[in-house]
C-alpha cells in the first residue's frame, strides 16, 4: 500500500514539475510566432517539406499570415501551410483528403480527413474571395468523386 502511495506522490510531483517547466518556458518567452511573409514564401516552404511540390500562382494567405493555401501546378494537389507556434506544418492534399470547404463571411473553413489536423480556417480579404476559394476547392474535391 505504501508503495502505491509513494508512486502517486512521485507521479503527482512529476506532473507538478512538468507544469512548472512549461510555465517557466511561457514566462521566459524567447520564441516568435511563425508567420508566412507571402504566398511565394508559403509555396516555397511547401516545396521544401513535400519534395516535388511545384507551387502555382493560384494561392492565398490569411490576414494573420499564419495559414496559406497554394495549388500545385497542374492542380493535382492543394498545398497547405499552417503556422503552429514557432513552426510551420505542411500538407500537400489530394482531393480525397478534403472533407468540406465552407465560407462564413470572409472566413474560409476547411475540414480535412486528417486525425491530427482535422480543420483549418483562413480569414481572407472579403466574402467574395472566400466564396471563390470554396468554389475552387469544391471543384478540386470533385476530382476525387470522378475517380471513384
Amino acid at each position, binding site marked *: 500500500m505504501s508503495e502505491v502511495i509513494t*508512486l502517486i506522490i512521485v507521479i503527482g510531483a*512529476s506532473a507538478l514539475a512538468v507544469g512548472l*517547466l512549461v510555465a517557466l*518556458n511561457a514566462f*521566459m518567452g524567447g*520564441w516568435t510566432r511563425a508567420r508566412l511573409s507571402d504566398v511565394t514564401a508559403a509555396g516555397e516552404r511547401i516545396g521544401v*517539406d513535400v519534395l516535388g511540390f511545384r507551387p502555382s500562382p493560384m494561392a492565398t494567405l490569411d490576414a494573420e499570415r499564419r495559414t496559406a493555401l497554394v495549388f500545385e501546378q497542374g492542380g493535382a494537389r492543394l498545398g497547405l501551410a499552417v503556422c*503552429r*507556434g514557432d*513552426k510551420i506544418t505542411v500538407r500537400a492534399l489530394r482531393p480525397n483528403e478534403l472533407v468540406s470547404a465552407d465560407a462564413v463571411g470572409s472566413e474560409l473553413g476547411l475540414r480535412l480527413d486528417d486525425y491530427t489536423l482535422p480543420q483549418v480556417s483562413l480569414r481572407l480579404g472579403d466574402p467574395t474571395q472566400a466564396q471563390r476559394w470554396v468554389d475552387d476547392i469544391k471543384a478540386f474535391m470533385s476530382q476525387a468523386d470522378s475517380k471513384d
Partner: protein
Amino acid sequence: MPNLPDPIFVAIPAFVILVIAEMIYARTSGGARYEPRDTAASLTMGLGNTISGVLLGGIAVYWFTLIEPFGLFDIGWAWWAFALAFLLDDLVYYWSHRFAHTVRWWWADHVVHHSSQHYNLSTALRQPWLSPLTLKFIVFGSWLVLLGFPPAMIAFVAALNLVYQFWIHTEAIGKMWAPIEWIMNTPSHHRVHHATNPRYLDRNYAGVFIIWDRLFGTFEAERKDEPCRYGIVRNLGTFNPIKICLHEWLAIIRDVRGSKSVSEALGYWLGPPGWSPDGSRDSSKILKARWKARQEEKSDPTKVAAE
C-alpha cells in the same frame, strides 16, 4: 544480486535542471529553441511513458522471468559482465531502433519520439506510452537474457543507455572533438537522426556508440550546408498527447481495414512506414530516391532532357 538503483529515477533531477539551463540558454543566446505547447506535449509524453512503464512494464518483466532459466551461460554479476552487457545492449538497441524505423508496427510506437518539430532536451523525454504492447521486447530484449545475463543487469544497463541519450537532444552543442564524434553518439549525430531532410532520413540509429552505424552502413554526418529540419515526413498538426500517442496506430488500423488482400494488409502493418501497394505514398526509400534524382538533375541537366 546487488541492489541496483534505477538510473532513470536517479537522473530525473538532473534532467529537470538541464532542461531549465537549456531554456535559459535558449532565451539568452538563441542557440536553442523552446515553445511552451511543444514543451508541454513532450514532457507530458515523458510523464505518461513513466506511468505506462509502471502499468504495462510487468508484461516484459513476466516474459524475462519466464525465459531466464533458459540462459546459455550463468554470467553472474562480475564488473566485466556489466561492461559487456552495456556494449551488447547498445548493439541490440541499434537493431531494435533500426527496426523501429523500418517496420510500421514498431514505428507506430517510436514515431512519438520523432513527432516534435523542435529538437531540445524536452524532446528526449517525448516517449511513447504503449511500447510493451508492441512486443518488441520479446524480439530484441530476449537475446541477452538467453545468453545468460541477469535480467536486472540488462534493465540497469538499458536504463543507463537511455540516460546517456538524454543530453544528445540539443542544438546547444556543435560538433565535438573528432575522436568522440567517431566513437560516441553525439548531439550532432543524433540531430541527423531526428531530421527529415531526405539525405538524413533513416540514419544514425545508435544509442551510445555511433560505431554501429559506421559498421552497418547507416552513418551520415551532419553537414553545415544542410541544416536539419526536425520532425517527421508528415508533421503532426496537434499538441494533444492522446493524439500524439495514437495517430499512427489508428492510421494502421484504417489502412488494414481498407486492404484488398492479406498481403496488402501485411504490407500496411509490417511494411516500412509510408508503404503502399502502388507506391503512391512517401516511404523513406521513395523520398531518398526522388531526392537523389533531383540532385543528379541539378548536377547534370542533360539527364532530364534525355529521359
